[in-house]
């Protein structure tokens, strides 16, 4: 067994136009080792992984596999070299069986075989990931989320890779399923494979990683043995104090009158109904990992997520309503920005000006006829307040960078003069410069009296922006932090190993 690393990346740089996604990353991994890869949003993790798995060729720097310099030209090439990646989004075919999915794509399976034959061939791979009790003939759409993730990994393992890259493998998984994933990682390690484990769940990192590499702002900040680190050190390495300059100073007192009251809202995914209120000019944060309930609550208030019940009350008008659709939410001045702007936050093929006026056509028209001057002035106003270059307004939204696209996705809601802005992951895929501008704007809006509720998995963001934070863990409300108690340590603790479950504690049943 040589001591040289199996995969080594040196001096990796990746620019997108003027945006430096990666400024110089060095990373290496040995055989039979688990390397944890951590970093906040925008640190460059996804860019790095795309490069490592052959999906991105536009980088400079050297890649060595087993000591020799290689060209990771394409995903197929990377796979041939022995690198496999399990993305966050599953790529299983729901209408096919487990066995068929495992042998899909690639030449590792037989050309002619019955379902039974495939099942038998698939068995060892399923066992390797810990799915001993699954019938390989079962259709994938019948599996649970956790089992699907394991099948996805089994599919990669069938290609007999040396290195497995797992991107947030336990996001939205139950406790038991997460345990299975961790056991699988250990099993792979024992078999001499290498695993790069990317995750926000720092507690898991410590459970299985041998070494940890921290990415910050596009560069590898540090690589240490897991035994030399603990959670607070890790968080410090990830965040860095100078990044706090991005945030405007916070108003620590909770002033103002109640603006919106949420009563007994029970979105799918939350363990029990939740009630809270938000004041005028307050920035309230909902902290929690994917699937914890934070994002679900926001979508539910906006009418975009199924609920078992709940009432929203507009305190200024006294009106109460059921959050049944986005139209209803909009009519009450509630704006919702989903975490996936490409999917439903932007009209990429339409001009930016049309995007900015899309939620409120009534405002730019008279009796159904569009008024050009009203439309122009509205979109120019919004563009100016969000620092979007007004000369770009006639261009398609697709030409913008991630940061500017997010500004458009968020800014368009100003057209309805919202009383409440709900935003989930306000700076996902956004560069540092645009991040600061977005934070500045959000604080300005709050100061003018708009209520804002932010959900985010970015620790820095969720501790620096809001003045009050509700924390969630696995579908339950775990704490309410205010004032000076709102800091990364407390939040991280409450979203991973909470001291209490606020909602459930007082339950009779």
């Amino acid at each position: 067994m040589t001591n040289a690393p199996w995969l080594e990346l040196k001096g990796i740089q990746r620019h997108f136009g003027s945006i430096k996604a990666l400024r110089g990353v060095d990373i290496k991994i040995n055989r039979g080792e688990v390397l944890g890869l951590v970093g906040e949003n925008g640190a460059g993790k996804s860019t790095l992984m795309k490069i490592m798995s052959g999906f991105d060729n536009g980088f400079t720097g050297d890649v060595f596999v087993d000591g020799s310099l290689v060209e990771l030209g394409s995903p197929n090439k990377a796979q041939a070299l022995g690198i496999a990646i399990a993305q966050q989004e599953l790529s299983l075919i729901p209408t096919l069986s487990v066995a068929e999915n495992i042998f899909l794509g690639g030449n590792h399976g037989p050309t002619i075989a019955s379902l039974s034959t495939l099942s038998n061939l698939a068995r060892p791979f399923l066992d390797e990931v810990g799915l001993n009790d699954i019938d390989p003939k079962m259709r994938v759409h019948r599996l649970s989320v956790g089992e699907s993730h394991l099948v996805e990994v089994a599919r990669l393992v069938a290609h007999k890779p040396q290195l497995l890259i797992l991107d947030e493998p336990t996001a939205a998984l139950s406790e038991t399923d997460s345990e299975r994933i961790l056991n699988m990682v250990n099993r792979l390690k024992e078999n001499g494979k290498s695993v790069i484990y990317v995750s926000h769940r720092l507690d898991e990192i410590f459970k299985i990683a041998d070494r940890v590499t921290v990415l910050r702002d596009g560069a590898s900040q540090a690589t240490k043995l897991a035994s030399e680190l603990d959670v607070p050190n890790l968080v410090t390495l990830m965040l860095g104090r100078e990044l706090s300059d991005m945030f405007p100073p916070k108003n620590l007192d909770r002033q103002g009158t109640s603006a919106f009251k949420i009563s007994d809202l029970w979105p799918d995914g939350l363990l029990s109904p939740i009630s809270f209120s938000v004041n005028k000019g307050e920035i309230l944060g909902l902290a929690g990992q994917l699937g914890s309930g934070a994002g679900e609550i926001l979508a539910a208030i906006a009418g975009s997520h199924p609920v078992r019940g709940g009432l929203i009350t507009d305190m200024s008008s006294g009106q109460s309503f059921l959050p049944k659709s986005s139209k209803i939410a909009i009519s009450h001045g509630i704006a919702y920005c989903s975490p996936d702007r490409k999917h439903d936050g932007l009209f990429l093929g339409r001009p930016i000006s049309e995007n900015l006026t899309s939620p409120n056509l009534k405002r730019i028209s008279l009796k159904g006829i569009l008024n050009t001057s009203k439309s122009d002035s509205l979109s120019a106003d919004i563009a100016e307040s969000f620092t979007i270059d007004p000369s770009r307004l006639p261009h398609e939204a697709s030409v913008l960078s991630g940061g500017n696209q997010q500004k458009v996705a968020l800014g368009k809601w100003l057209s309805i003069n919202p009383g409440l802005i709900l935003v989930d992951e306000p700076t996902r895929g956004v560069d540092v410069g645009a991040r600061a501008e977005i934070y500045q704007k959000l604080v300005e809006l709050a100061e003018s009296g708009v209520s804002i509720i932010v959900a985010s998995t970015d620790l820095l963001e969720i501790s620096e922006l809001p003045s009050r934070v509700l924390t969630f863990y696995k579908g339950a409300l775990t704490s309410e932090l205010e004032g000076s108690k709102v800091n990364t340590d407390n939040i991280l603790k409450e979203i991973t190993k909470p001291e209490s479950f606020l909602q459930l504690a007082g339950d009779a049943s």
Partner: protein
Amino acid sequence: MTFFNFKKITSNDPDLTFAILLSALVFAFFSLYEPLFFNINTGFAIMERFAVLGLVGLALTLCIIAGEIDLSIGSNAALSAVIVVRLTDSIGAPNAILIALALATTIGLIQGFFIAYLKVRAIVLTVGTLMLLRGITLFAADEKTVMLTDFDIPDFIQEKIFYIFSPASFLVLGLFVLVALFMRYTKYGREVYAIGGARKEAVASGVSLKRPMMIVFAISGLCAGIGGAIIGLRSGTAQPLGLQYLLLAATVAAFIGGVSVLGGKGGVVGAFVGTLTVNFLNTGLVFNVTPAYIAQMYLGGLLLVVILFQNMSKVYEDKQQRQLKLADTDSFRQRLLKSLKA
């Protein structure tokens, strides 16, 4: 053989069960309503119809499973019919058939190529090729209906074999079996299901779009070719603008058989059952001396009914999924409460 494991089919495949029931219902209805329906000659007529409609239904089923559709299939079949009829006099039926089939399959391959390589939606491309092929057919037929000079030549394809079959329907049934085996037992067949049911995921898994797409459209072309050849030889004539009714009938057959607009669902068995059902309906209506346009009306209505049923069963399935998820959440909550109390 797993093909005939009824219990498994019913539980795994509610759509196929529905199709079989519907088929039996239509058959029973006409058997009771029209005394002449339930006899061997009718059975022969049904199987003869099946020979052509089954081919087109099979082709469309495969296309829809792959997430696409071939609107040009009628035109392709008409071209094939014209070629066979025109060339039989000079070079004999078998050679004419071979040429027609080769041409039809090549046309299919080319379409599949463009769809896969240029990522054009099939529905868009086949609108154009439908017209293009029709123009070629008009050209090949000199704008008129072409006829054989010797009407006895093609009688062999209509000989009765084993009560209700003929060489034509046997050939088609054989093709059904071949394609079924292909779809179920080979990697390439599964790729077709993959690119239909979840195309993004399939491509992300490394499935190339090109191979399954070209295979599906080549089969579609071949089926159109055989179908056209059979019709041409059977009647001894070919109209350049004919065979357009095939599209609606075959689409209804495919949907009765269980395909979904979303792709990835359905199979050859379903295509068989669906085609039979449409044939029962058509033949039964002929007995009733129903004009063709009324038959079209029934088919159109049947299609809408099947779509409605599919939609309702999807809504039901979504509801079940949600209930399962909610039950999961609730049981987790119970476990959490128990551990807190402890």
